[in-house]
């Protein structure tokens, strides 16, 4: 039987990060981008927790994961407010249409 080790967690976390990054880079919808960011954060959380379990960091990793979750909640609140403002200004939440700061 295959024992689940640190390696498996890191593979899952890397996949999760890649999906999140892909979502951030490709989604035109701002909400989609936000979802991608959440995926990236959660991949980091998974790393923290995995290293806490198999590494030498004892409980510190889990503590950081808790902080990241709280931070992600706050970030989501602010990001949604920004999205609302973008919508008010551009009548759209497509990030490639909000480009008035270009050259």
């Amino acid at each position, binding site marked *: 039987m295959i024992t689940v080790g640190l390696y498996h967690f890191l593979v899952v976390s890397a996949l999760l990060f890649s999906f999140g990054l892909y979502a951030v*880079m490709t989604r035109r919808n701002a909400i989609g981008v936000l979802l991608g960011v959440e995926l990236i954060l959660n991949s980091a959380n998974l790393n923290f927790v995995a290293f806490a379990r198999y590494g030498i960091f004892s409980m510190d990793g889990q503590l950081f994961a808790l902080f990241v979750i709280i931070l992600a909640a706050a970030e989501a609140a602010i990001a949604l407010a920004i999205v609302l403002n973008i919508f008010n200004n551009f009548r759209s939440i497509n990030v*490639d249409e*909000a*480009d*008035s*700061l*270009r*050259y």
Partner: protein
Amino acid sequence: MNTIILYSLILLFLPLAAFAINILVGKRLPRKGDWVSLSAILISFSFALSMFAYMLFIRYDPDFSVEWRWLWIDLGDFVIELGILVDNLTIMMLLVVTLVSSLIHIYSISYMKDDPRYNRYFAYLSLFSFSMLIIVLSNNLFGLYIGWELVGISSYLLIGFWFEKDSASDAGKKAFITNRVGDFGFFIGVLLFFTAVGSFNYGDIIAGVDAGAMSDGLFTAAGIALFMGAVGKSAQVPLHIWLPDAMEGPTPVSALIHAATMVAAGVYMVGRIYPLFSPGALLFIAYVGAITAFVTATIAVVRKDIKRVLAYSTVSQLGFMILALGVGGYVSGLWHLTTHAFFKALLFLGAGSVIHAAHTNDMFRMGGFKKKMPVTFWTFLIATLAISGVPGFSGFFSKDAILASALEFSFAHPGHIMLFILPLIAAGLTAFYMFRALFLTFYGEPQDKEIYSHIHESPGSMTIPMVILATITILITFDQWRGFEYLPLVGEYAGWFQHLIHEPAAIFTGAAAMAESVVGHGASEETAHTIAMWLSIFVAGVGILLAYLFYLKKSLSAEKVSKSLSSIYTLLRNKYYFDEFYGATVIRGVLGLSKASAKFDDTVIDGAVNGTATITIWLSKASRWFDDHIVDGAVNGTATVTTFFGTRLRRLQTGTVENYVSFLVVGILVFFIFQAIF
């Protein structure tokens, strides 16, 4: 304050007030303000007269002297005092100045009538009176110098009064500049004494020098420097050239300033500070006086212009006074100053009266005026008799005293016999040229019928001053007449002038010894006086006789004599070429120096200035090139480079978030790859 001082201050400042009023508002006053000046000088005269009466009838004290010192500037160590010194000499001079000045004011009312600058004329007369009174009253060299310069400027203003005539304005300038030469010496003398003693006051200086503040050589030099002022102001050779030209001014001015008072200021100054002249300086003074008396008397002989004759005669008589002071005849010099002031003013007023009637100065176009101008003739005759030294008249006594002093000096110092010979000849010449003027003007046949036909006696305001002056001319030496001392009441005043004016004590033993040798020998004084008297009567008689033979009887021909002595005649006609000499040396020298200076200015100084400008322009151009190319180049270059990269790099700012994220990811990947490789 002492009453005498109070009087002096009042009589000093009244003419100044009149000057201020006349120069400012005179034109708008009734009669153009002549009465302001006239009343000021008349009040001054009445004060002077009362002081004179006090001196003569109440004090009659040879040592009478009042001094008032007033602190003007006090800067610790540096103190300048002004002040007033009144003694017998001052009062005598005050009387002469205010009296002659008053008479001239009266005379001028008619003479200057209808002149467009009538009020200014009277303003200047007042200014002159004020300045002259400063000289007379001052108790210090500083105040004297102030008055000295003020009479200079008023003289300048009055000589050039008719400045529309070039000759008048030139004469004014000539007088002023020539006087500057003398004044320069005078100023040096004043400063020499001030540096040595630390005070301008006469008494302080005399006491200081007496205490040995100056070496003998410096003392003599300072005395001669002071005397240079008198040479200029009293028109002594070689600075006499301005006085004859000064006759361009109105004739009353000539009478007041250039005959009676201002030109006598030099003599008065020498008399005032007599102890400040060392024996060496006095000898110098004596020679200057003797040479002046002789040289100018010879020039006067050949003049045709009646005023020029009188002008040279004035210079000659001033030479007599200076000579007298130089040879120790202190009293006789100042006595001649007093008598001369009256009869010379009278001569000028007479000449003015003639000129006013005839409208010409040329004596050879006059003749026979005696009948038509009796008052002018008689007063002129009295003055001529006086100046010629005819016994009984004032000039005889004073000039005789001078000749006696000179002869005494020659007895004591036989090497200096010329100091007697020259003035003796000059005395004879004086009689000759004055009677020549008298005969040509008033006797004989009228030379110009047209002039003769319209001449007339001058009005009262002109003749009255002349009559007054003629009376004074006779009366002033009345006390010298034999038997005067036996007269009741006035008999005790015989010789009052000699009683009141006496020589101040000399400073140096040398001077004292010299004065002793001159005055001390009673026998030689008596002898000298007798000899001098007979000789002066003789030369005056010869002079008058020659004038009679030449110009009245015509038994001798002036033309023949002048032809046979043509070289001397030409020399005299050209006034010994003094003007030409100055023209060739001083004036040309100054002009040459000016031209050289102008050239230096134009080439060197202007060249330096322009050169500096050129160099500055070049430097500026270089600096500008550096600015334009290097500094601006650097600045613009920075901007160009920035723009170059900016325009290219801005393309990165797409505004699309995905791009940014892609850059981020690519960047991180690059970092990782770098880390993995190196």
